[in-house]
C-alpha cells in the first residue's frame, strides 16, 4: 500500500519487457524470467503477480468468449448444447413430467412445454421462475392463479389440468395450445375488421365466463391470447387474476400490475376497489383497437408516459388510422375505451353480443355520444390546443367587454389585440398539426413555446402595459412549458420570459406611480426564475420516476 512506490514511473524499456512477458504468457509460452530480471531486478514481484493474473485468466476467465461469442453479438439460435432453460432445471425430469422446451416467461412465471409421462400428452407447465427466490406474495399469487384457472371450463379458455408442488416448487399444468400469440398474429398490421370482430367476440365470451366465476383477469393483452391453427383464440395467463370480492390480500400493496398499454384507467390509477369486470372490458376494447388499427391505443415511449395517457389522454379515433374500419366497429371500440367504467359495456357478454350484432350487420348498441361528450373527448385528445383556444377565447371576451363598456382603448389597438389573440389561436392549431407530423418531435415544443412567448409579449407591448396584472402570462407560459416534461424546454421558456419582460419594461413608459420603482422589476424577474426552477425541478422529478419504471418494467410485462 505504498502509493509513492505505486507512482514510480518505469522507463519505456521496462514497460516493453513486461508487455512482451504478458504476451508470451498469453500465447502459452514460458518466457525467460531470469532474462528479464537480469536487466530489471526490481520487477521480480511484478512478474510473479503477472504470472498469477495469467493463471487466473486461464482458470476459465479468458476463454469465455468461446461459447458466448455469438450470443454476445446477436441472439443466435441456440445449439442443443445450450438450451434456453436455466441450468438447474436441465434435469428435464420434473416429477411426472418431462420438460421439453421453454415457451415463455413473464414477470414471475415461466412456462414450459412438457410431456406428461403417464398419459404421453403434451401440456404447458407453469412454475414460478426457479431462479428467483419467490416471495411469499409471489407464491400466494401463483396459487391464486392456479385456483382461479382450475375452476374454468370454456372452449376459449386454456384449461388447467393439475395443480401441484414438487420439491417445494409450486407448478400447474394446462392445455398446450399449438399456435401463436395474438400479438404475433396481428403483427402490427390492421386486421380485416370482420375477422377482428369475430375473434374478439369469442374472446369476450371467454372473459364473460371468467367474470361469471367471479374472476377478473386484469391483464388481458395480445400476448395473453393464444390463437391456434384454426384461428380459435384462447385466453390464458391468469397471473394477475383477482377473484371479485375474494380475499385480495395479494394486491394489498396497491401495486400497479399489468401492461400499461391495455390497462384500464382505474387500474392504472391504482384504485384497487374500482377494478372490476369493467377493467377487462376496457382491455378487450384496447386489444380490438390494436387489431383494427395496427397499434395499441396508447403507445408512448416510456411506461410512465403511457400511464399518464391512459389516465387522461384520448387515443386517435380508430378510423383516422384505418379508413376502411366500419363506423359501427369504431363505436364499439370507443365504448369499451370510455374512461368511466359505467360508460362502458356493462359486461364482457354485452360486448360479445354487440360484436355479434356487428357481424350480422345489425345496428350496434353503442351509439355516438352527445356533442358535449364529443367535445370533452376532443379536448382530451388535444389538451395543448384546447387549453390555448380556451385561453384565447376568454381573453378575447374580456378584452371586447372592456372595450365596449369602458372605452379606454382606441379601436385600432383593440383590433390589434383581437388580431394577436386570433394569431395565438391559429398558431396553436398550426403547431398541433405540426406536432402530429413533424419528424423532429423535439423542435415543435420549442418553437411553440417561442411563438407563445412572442405573441404574449406583443399583446403586452401594444397595450403598453407591462405594469398590469397581464404580466401573469409569463409565469403561466413557463408552467405550461412544463407540461411537455422537458427540463430544457422549461429553462428555455424561463429565459425567454425573463428577456421579454426586461425588454418590455425597458422600452415602455411607466405610469407615474410606478416611476422609479425599478426594484419591482427585479423582484418580478427573480420570481420568473423561481417559477422556472420549481417547474424544472418537478419535471425532473417526474422524469426520474419515469426512468425508474423504464428500468423496472411493470410486473407481468
Amino acid at each position, binding site marked *: 500500500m505504498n502509493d509513492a512506490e505505486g507512482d514510480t514511473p518505469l522507463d519505456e524499456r521496462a514497460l516493453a519487457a513486461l508487455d512482451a512477458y*504478458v504476451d508470451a504468457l498469453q500465447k502459452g509460452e514460458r518466457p525467460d524470467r531470469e532474462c528479464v530480471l537480469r536487466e530489471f531486478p526490481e520487477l521480480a514481484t511484478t512478474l510473479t*503477480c503477472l504470472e498469477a493474473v495469467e493463471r487466473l485468466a486461464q482458470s*476459465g476467465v479468458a476463454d469465455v468468449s468461446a461459447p458466448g461469442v455469438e450470443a454476445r453479438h446477436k441472439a443466435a439460435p*441456440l445449439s442443443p448444447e445450450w438450451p434456453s432453460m*436455466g*441450468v438447474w432445471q436441465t434435469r428435464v425430469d420434473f416429477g411426472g413430467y418431462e420438460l*421439453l422446451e421453454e415457451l415463455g416467461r413473464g414477470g414471475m412465471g415461466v412456462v414450459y412445454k412438457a410431456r406428461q409421462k403417464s398419459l404421453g400428452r403434451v401440456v404447458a407447465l407453469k412454475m414460478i421462475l426457479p*431462479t428467483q427466490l419467490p416471495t411469499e406474495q409471489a407464491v400466494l399469487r401463483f396459487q391464486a392463479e392456479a385456483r382461479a384457472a382450475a375452476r374454468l371450463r370454456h372452449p376459449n379458455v386454456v384449461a388447467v389440468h393439475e395443480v401441484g408442488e414438487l420439491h417445494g416448487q409450486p407448478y400447474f399444468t394446462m392445455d398446450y395450445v399449438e399456435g401463436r400469440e395474438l400479438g*404475433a398474429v396481428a403483427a402490427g398490421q390492421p386486421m380485416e375488421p370482420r375477422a377482428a370482430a369475430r375473434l374478439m367476440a369469442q374472446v369476450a365470451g371467454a372473459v364473460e365466463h371468467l367474470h361469471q366465476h367471479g374472476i377478473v383477469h386484469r391483464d388481458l393483452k395480445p400476448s395473453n391470447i393464444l390463437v391456434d391453427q384454426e384461428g380459435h383464440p384462447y385466453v390464458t395467463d391468469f397471473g394477475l387474476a383477482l377473484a371479485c370480492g375474494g380475499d385480495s390480500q395479494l394486491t394489498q400493496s396497491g401495486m400497479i400490475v399489468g401492461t400499461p398499454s391495455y390497462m384500464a384507467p382505474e387500474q392504472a390509477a391504482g384504485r384497487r376497489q374500482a377494478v372490476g369486470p369493467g377493467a377487462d372490458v376496457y382491455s378487450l376494447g384496447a386489444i380490438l383497437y390494436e387489431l383494427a388499427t395496427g397499434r395499441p391505443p396508447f403507445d408512448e415511449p416510456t411506461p410512465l408516459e403511457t400511464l399518464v395517457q391512459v389516465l387522461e389522454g384520448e387515443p386517435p379515433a380508430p378510423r383516422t388510422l384505418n379508413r376502411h374500419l366500419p363506423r359501427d366497429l369504431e363505436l364499439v371500440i370507443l365504448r369499451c375505451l370510455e374512461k368511466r367504467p359505467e360508460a362502458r359495456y356493462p359486461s364482457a357478454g354485452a360486448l360479445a353480443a354487440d360484436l355479434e350484432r356487428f357481424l350480422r350487420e345489425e345496428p350496434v348498441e353503442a351509439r355516438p355520444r352527445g356533442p358535449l361528450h364529443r367535445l370533452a373527448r376532443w379536448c382530451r385528445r388535444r389538451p395543448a390546443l384546447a387549453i390555448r383556444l380556451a385561453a384565447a377565447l376568454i381573453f378575447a371576451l374580456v378584452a371586447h367587454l372592456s372595450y365596449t363598456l369602458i372605452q379606454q382603448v382606441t379601436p385600432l389597438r383593440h383590433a390589434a389585440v383581437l388580431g394577436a389573440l386570433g394569431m395565438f389561436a391559429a398558431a396553436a392549431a398550426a403547431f398541433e398539426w405540426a406536432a402530429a407530423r413533424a419528424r423532429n418531435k423535439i423542435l415543435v415544443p420549442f418553437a411553440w413555446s417561442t411563438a407563445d412567448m412572442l405573441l404574449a409579449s406583443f399583446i403586452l407591448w401594444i397595450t403598453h402595459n407591462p405594469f398590469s396584472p397581464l404580466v401573469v402570462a409569463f409565469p403561466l407560459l413557463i408552467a405550461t412549458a412544463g407540461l411537455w416534461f422537458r427540463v430544457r424546454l422549461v429553462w428555455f421558456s424561463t429565459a425567454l420570459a425573463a428577456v421579454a419582460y426586461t425588454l418590455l419594461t425597458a422600452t415602455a413608459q411607466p405610469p407615474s406611480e410606478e416611476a422609479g420603482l425599478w426594484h419591482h422589476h427585479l423582484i418580478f424577474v427573480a420570481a420568473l426564475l423561481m417559477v422556472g426552477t420549481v417547474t424544472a425541478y418537478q419535471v425532473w422529478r417526474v422524469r426520474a420516476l419515469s426512468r425508474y419504471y423504464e428500468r423496472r418494467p411493470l410486473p407481468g410485462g
Partner: protein
Amino acid sequence: MPETTSAAVSELLARAREGDADALNRLYEASRPWLAIVARACLEEKLRSRVDPSDLVQQTLLEAYRAFEGFAGRTEGEWLAWLRQILLRNAVDYVRWFCTAKRGAGHVSLAGADDRSAIRCEPTADIPSPSEQAVVHEEVLRLAQAITALSDDYQQVIQLRHFEQLPFDEVAQRMQRSRPAVQMLWLRAVRRLKDLMDERC
C-alpha cells in the same frame, strides 16, 4: 470480508458434501469474486450496462446452490469449471432474454415449437471441457477477490489486457485514453494488486 480461502476448496467441497452448511456457504463466498470476473468478461460492454454482472453471479450461485447435489467433482478445478458452465448458460439465457425484451416481445413465440421438442440436456456436473481442466491453484480465488477490490479503472484495464487479451493499443482505444496513460494505469493496477496480495498473506 471473511477469510474465505483459508481452507482449501477441495476440503470445503468434501465437507459440504457431508452436509456441512457452513462449508458450503464459505465455498460460495470464496467463488463469488472469481465468478464476478468471469461474468464481466463474458458480457459485452454495451450489455454490461443493461445486465448487472452481479445479478448473473447471484443467479448462478443460487442455481448452483440448488443443484449442488448433482455436482460430482472433487477438485477446485472441477468446481470452478462447473460454476463457470452454469454462469455461461445463464449469460446466454440473459442475452437471449435481453434481445427478445428489446424487440418488445415479452414472450417467446410459440411458432415452430414442436420440431425442437427433443432438446438434449446434458447433465451439467462432471464434464468440463479440456481447456477448463487447467490446473487451478487456490491462489486464483484470492487473486480474484483482490481484483474485485480494485477501483473500476484498475479492474477495467486488467480485464481488457489480461482477460480479453487485447494489446495496449486496443486497450487505449476502448478506454478512450492515450496508450502511455493506459500503460501507466495498468502498471499501477498491477502494483496495487501486488500490495493487496501481500497484505493478505
